[in-house]
């Protein structure tokens, strides 16, 4: 397999983008990435999106976006894995270049969630429709059940969940693309409206519109383009049971663990070699569980680790310097690619006020549903 580099990045602001349609936001992000990369052609493209069909009645968006970007007839397809659609689109793009099939690939993620669809229903399609959703569960509900089981086993409280949200909001104030770039307090979270006990509105990532795109290519082309060499050194992915109640242990996000292990093995590194990471904080409890599964901290110690400030920008391993899904926003399919955008900004040294010093190795972790799919990528600057 050939080595693959990220040479261009671009994203829209995440938020309620009333004046922009699904195609508008994708093209905006794609043009930014193409301009950043300074490439004059693309060989193929992958578009990650969870459910443009349910949100705006539009499927077939691989072809649709190739058309509106003006790059048809290149091969294009949509990749779907619920909230991990963007991350899996990146993996497919990576494989396209690594295999030698294509030289320059555009990977994008997009979701347009504010055009009036039943968002709770649309997102619930990531769960077991007949045996979870049929009964009346919602996504906040699934993560609320994970949180209650976590509190019961490990001695954590709602305050620990709030600390994740507070940290991510603080990071978001330094991200011009963030949907909610505002400081919040622990009390803001503890007193917020309850969605599914103990998950409040302030524990939940928002409903957002947005798109993020990257251009990936070979090391040779990256050198010709005179870009800093930022290599994809690891890619791992895994699946688990779709229903939370069918997991071997419902507190083990084993797809995250396995995807991480696979990526670390390919990269030839260990968790302690990672300098910072963008992880899938769809709900605050998810970040606590994920940092444990990725090996950054022992099982059951994620809450305490967060409380000690180890995941803050100034901590041992900054998690979600972009503001995470909570503050930056979570246009579902765009998230996985936006995580890559942040890693690249950090590794290039262009992250402004939220720049992590000596960032050399960054990791992205994108997850679908209640953990049924997960994809991890590791990046290193040379």
């Amino acid at each position, binding site marked *: 397999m050939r080595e693959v580099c990220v040479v261009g990045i671009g994203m829209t602001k995440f938020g309620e983008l009333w004046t922009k349609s699904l195609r508008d936001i994708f093209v905006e992000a794609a043009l930014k990435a193409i301009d950043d990369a300074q490439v004059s052609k693309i060989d193929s493209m992958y578009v990650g999106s969870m459910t443009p069909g349910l949100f705006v009645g539009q499927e077939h968006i691989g072809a649709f976006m190739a058309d509106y970007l003006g790059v048809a007839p290149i091969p294009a397809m949509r990749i779907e894995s619920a909230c991990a659609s963007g991350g899996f689109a990146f993996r497919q793009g990576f494989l396209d270049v690594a295999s030698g099939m294509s030289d320059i690939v555009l990977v994008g993620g997009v979701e347009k969630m504010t055009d009036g669809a039943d968002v709770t*229903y649309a997102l619930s399609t990531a769960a077991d429709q007949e*045996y979870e959703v049929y*009964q009346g*569960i919602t996504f*906040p*509900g699934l993560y609320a059940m994970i949180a*209650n*089981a976590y509190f019961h086993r490990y001695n954590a409280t709602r305050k620990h969940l709030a600390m994740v949200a507070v940290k991510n909001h603080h990071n978001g104030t330094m991200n011009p693309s963030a949907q909610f770039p505002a400081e919040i307090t622990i009390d803001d979270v503890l007193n917020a409206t*309850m969605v599914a*006990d103990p998950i409040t509105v302030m524990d939940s990532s928002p409903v957002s519109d947005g798109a993020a795109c990257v251009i990936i290519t070979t090391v040779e082309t990256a050198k010709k383009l005179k870009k800093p060499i930022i290599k994809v050194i690891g890619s791992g992915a895994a699946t688990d049971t779709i229903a939370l109640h069918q997991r071997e242990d419902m507190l083990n996000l084993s797809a995250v663990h396995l995807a991480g292990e696979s990526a670390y093995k390919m990269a030839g590194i260990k968790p302690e070699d990672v300098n910072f990471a963008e992880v899938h904080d769809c709900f605050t409890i998810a970040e606590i569980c994920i940092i444990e599964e990725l090996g950054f901290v022992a099982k059951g110690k994620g809450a305490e680790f967060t409380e000690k400030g180890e995941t803050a920008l100034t901590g041992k391993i900054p998690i979600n310097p972009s503001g995470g899904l909570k503050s930056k926003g979570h246009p579902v399919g765009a998230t996985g690619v936006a995580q890559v955008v942040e890693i690249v900004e950090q590794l290039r040294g262009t992250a402004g006020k939220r720049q992590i010093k000596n960032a050399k190795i960054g990791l992205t972790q994108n997850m679908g549903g209640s953990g049924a799919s997960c994809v991890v990528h590791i990046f290193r600057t040379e």
Partner: protein
Amino acid sequence: MPSPRYTREMPQRYRLEAGRCKKCGKIYFPPRIVCPRCKSKEFEKIKLADTGKIVTYTTIRVAPDRFAAQVPYSIAIVELNDNVRITTQVVDCKPEDITIGKTVKLVFRKIQEEGAAGIICYGYKAVLV
């Protein structure tokens, strides 16, 4: 939902019909074609236990349109006495009465309905015993 989609799941929702792998003994609810554990394709039809314990739970306060009128309602993951876990509402009690570890029994209840003119959908819910 369309009637055939509903009718297909009736044996599970009305009668708790599950499948036990003939080779390794693992029980699947709903029944499966392939056993993920041992890859066997031979199963026997069994009925699930109808009592169990609460493994974890929550109370839903923001629901999809279909369940909006029931808010707030509690949902739990229940581990039945045959070690099979299911997701089900816990009803006929206050949210604060529910704790992890409490014993429940499954009862036949109305789950949802398809709007003003659609079919009424039934299934299992849990009550504290």
